[in-house]
Structure formats: C-alpha cells, structure tokens
C-alpha cells in the first residue's frame, strides 16, 4: 500500500508553547487513522499543519509522495487535494447550502456552474441533504450543518480528508447522523485522519488509533489494542479518565 500522507519529525510552537515536538505519522491510502488524546495534546494543530493552515517550524509533510512543506510550493493547489472539516462547521452564513458547496469547485477548480451544481446536488442527495440545498446555514441543525461542511470538503474531490473533532460541538442526539456520514466515507475508501473524542466510534471505524500526548505520538496500533490493552501508562491514564467520564 502506498502512503497517502507522511508526517516526518514535525515541530510546531506557538510563541514559547511547543505544541508538536516531533510527530511521525504515516497514513496509507484508504486507511482511516484516529487521533486521540487530551485537549491541548496537539491533535487540532497537527491537522491544521497538514492542511498548511499553520506554518510549521521543523520537519516535513508529504502527500502522495510530494513534499508539501517545501519552500515555494503552491499552497492553494495543495489544499485542494486535502479536505478539512472543523469542529465549528465554519459554513459561510451568507450563502445557501448549494452556494457553500459549489463555491470552491467553481473558483479553485474553475468548474462550470452547471457541472458544479449537478455534482453538489448529487453529493447532497447522497447524504440526505437534497431538500436543504436552497436553505441558509442558520436554518439548519448543527448535525445538518456539519454534514454540509463535510459535503463542501468532498466537493473538491480530495485525496485525503482531515476531520477535526467534528462532533464535539453537537448536541448528543445529533452526533449519530454525522458519524454515519463518516462511516459511509470510510466504507467508500476515503483516506481519513480523524481527531476525535468518540472512543467507541474510533474503535468501530479506525484501522489504526494514535494516542497523542504532549506533542508526540506516544502509542499507536489497531483500535482494539490501544483502547483495550494500552502499553503506555499515560495512555492507560487517559483512557481511565474517559471511562470514568462515561465516554467509552
């Protein structure tokens, strides 16, 4: 299997706060990798670095073998290949659902409007959102908004999807519909790197789980092993706290 994503010795600081201290990670094509770890362990920062939303301090990131962190790389071209979905949806509130989804294909890929709208409508239908295409985001529930955000990223036909705690801002009863979408993407073979607090979901969907602690990947392996028989004491502590909070 070829590597869709390679992160090599990644360091990132915000001022004097060192958030990532040498992250090494490889994600194979069609693989689903879940990042778990406490708040502040660097999950979101890692995803934002992969999408070049944050400049990195040290290390390399390769997508499909191409180094995207090298000087002079066209960041816009790179980002078109990598979809990211945020915790807070970040839909464009002044545009209808359809306009949200078609904006990037039309501007960044120069796709004709008719084609962009046809593809967007097909994607929206696939995720049960066809009847919402002319609504504005304010009118949608959190779950619907997050599904639109996923569709918006998918409309760019990315090679890789990054999901940054996409269910954390949702009411509990809306989490399932979003996880269902991600499950379907996984089944369709989408390569994904997912930061999540949903341990049972990670166990279900992930090919591999990585435990991020203080800016490094402390432990990784198949979900059953990491979530049930972690070797590292820090992983055991983290999971113990999750179990006590009733989240596993």
């Amino acid at each position: 299997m070829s590597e869709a994503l390679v992160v090599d010795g990644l360091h990132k600081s915000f001022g004097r706060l060192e958030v990532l201290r040498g992250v090494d990670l490889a994600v194979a094509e069609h693989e689903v990798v879940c990042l778990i770890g406490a708040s502040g362990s660097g999950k979101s920062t890692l995803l934002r670095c992969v999408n070049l939303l944050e400049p990195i301090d040290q290390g390399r990131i390769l997508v499909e073998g191409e180094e995207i962190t090298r000087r002079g790389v066209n960041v816009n071209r790179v980002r078109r290949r990598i979809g990211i979905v945020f915790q807070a949806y970040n839909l464009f509130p002044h545009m209808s659902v359809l306009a949200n989804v078609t904006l990037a294909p039309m501007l960044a890929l120069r796709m004709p409007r008719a084609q962009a709208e046809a593809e967007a409508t097909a994607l929206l239908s696939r995720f049960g959102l066809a009847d919402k295409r002319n609504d504005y985001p304010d009118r949608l529930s959190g779950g619907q908004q997050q599904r639109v955000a996923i569709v918006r990223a998918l409309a760019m036909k990315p090679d890789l999807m990054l999901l940054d705690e996409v269910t954390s801002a949702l009411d509990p009863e809306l989490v399932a519909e979003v996880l269902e979408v991600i499950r379907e993407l996984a089944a369709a073979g989408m390569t994904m790197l997912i930061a999540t607090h949903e341990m049972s979901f990670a166990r279900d969907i992930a090919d591999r789980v990585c435990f991020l602690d203080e800016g490094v990947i402390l432990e990784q392996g198949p979900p059953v092993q990491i979530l049930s028989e972690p070797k590292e004491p820090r992983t055991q502590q983290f999971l113990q706290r999750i179990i006590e909070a009733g989240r596993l």
Partner: protein
Amino acid sequence: MTSAGEGRRGVTVALLSTVVFFTLLAVAITHAPGWPEVKRTFFNWSQFRDSMPEISRAFLLNVKIFMIAEAFILVLALVLAVVRSLPGPVFFPMRALGIAYADFFRGVPTILVIALLGFGAPALQLSWVPLSTTFWGIVALILVYTAYVSEVYRAGIESVHPSQDAAARSLGLTHWQSLRKVVLPQAVRRVIPPLLNDFIGLQKDTALVGFLGSVEAFKQSQIDAAATFNYTPFVAAAVLFVALTIPLARFTDWLVLRDRRRRQATGT
C-alpha cells in the same frame, strides 16, 4: 387581555404621551418673551414660500455633489480598507501609507480641507487643473469621507471571524478569492447601518462646499436671508436636508431587515 389588545393599548398610550409632550413644548416655546420676534424672522410662511423654489434648485447641487462623492467614496474606502488588511511584512509600506492617510484626513477639519483644496489647487494655475470650486469641494469631501468610511469597512472586515477565512483557504481559495467571496460580503452586510450614518454626514457636509462660493442650498439660503433680513430661508434649507435623509434611513432599515429575513427563510 389578548396580546393584540395589549398592542392596541400600547399604541394609544404612546400616542397620548406624544401629544401631551409636544403640546407642553409648543406652549413653552410660544409663550417665551422673544417668540413673536423669532416667529417673524425664522418662521415666516410667505418668506418660506418665496424662497423655497430657488433653494430647491440649489439643493439639486447638494444632491449631485453627494451622489458623485458617494460613488467614489464607497469604492476608494473599500480599497483602502483592503490594503490595510493585507497580511505579511511585504505589504508593510502600503499598510503604513493607509494608516497615515486615514489619520491625516480624519484629523483635519473638513472645512479646512475644502478651503485648502478649493482655494489652493486652482491657484496653482496649471492648465489641466480644473478651476471649478464645486469640483474641488467634491474632491475634498471624497478625501475626508474615504478616510472615515474605510475605518467602517475595516471594522467590518475585522468582525468576520478568522475561521471563515480559514475555511475558505482550506478549500483551496486564494487570499483574494476568500476576501472577495467570503470575508467582504459578510463584512459589508454588517456595516450597512454605520455606513449609512456616514452617508448622512456626507449629505449634510455638502453644505460646506458653499464656503467656496458654489451656490448650493445653504449658500442660496444665505443669499436670500441677506437680501430680506429674514432667516426663514435657512429653515427651508433644513427642511430639504431632512426630507432627503429620513427616507435614506428607512431604506437602510429595510435593507438590513430583508437580509436577515432571507437568511432565516427556508428555501423552496
């Protein structure tokens, strides 16, 4: 009591208290010792009628000055605001220039800018420099109001959460595309009320161009007042200004409301 009944009762109370308030005010004013004199010099109906046609014609110049200036201000101020929002050290000189411009033209009184340009520029006696006082009055208003309005735009741009730009950039849009399609449309919608505030200010400040000798409504009423020793023409000019600004205010309220309704509406 039903809520409709309560609403009707509220309207009645409001109406009643308004009538009482203004009756008291009118009584207080008309019983002032100097009222007969004030009435004669400021509220002379035949004077009002006689001066109105001329002042109305002169007021068309105010409207013209306003429309021309506003068209330039809306565009130039946006350019200035965008320049000031450019990221990165490369654009530092442009940002600095933008700040210096805004600081300068917000700091100097409008009447001074008008005087300096209106008397100074034609005095250069360059063949390609227009001599029209109205032209230089308009230029001065554009320079001053562009500085103010760019601050309004800038506040709007900064009020759009950075996550909106991040979302646009993450989809592969360029900085410019994100600005144009995502950030600015939201920024401009948010600042429509304060923008209107500046429009009204501009509309009133068109009267300052009269200082250069252009016969606009204020200058015309000055001429009329000087000829008749009666100040009623000023009141006539004031009525014209108010008649123009109030509809503009209601129009903006309507724009804001329409945008909110549309966002909350279900598509069909």
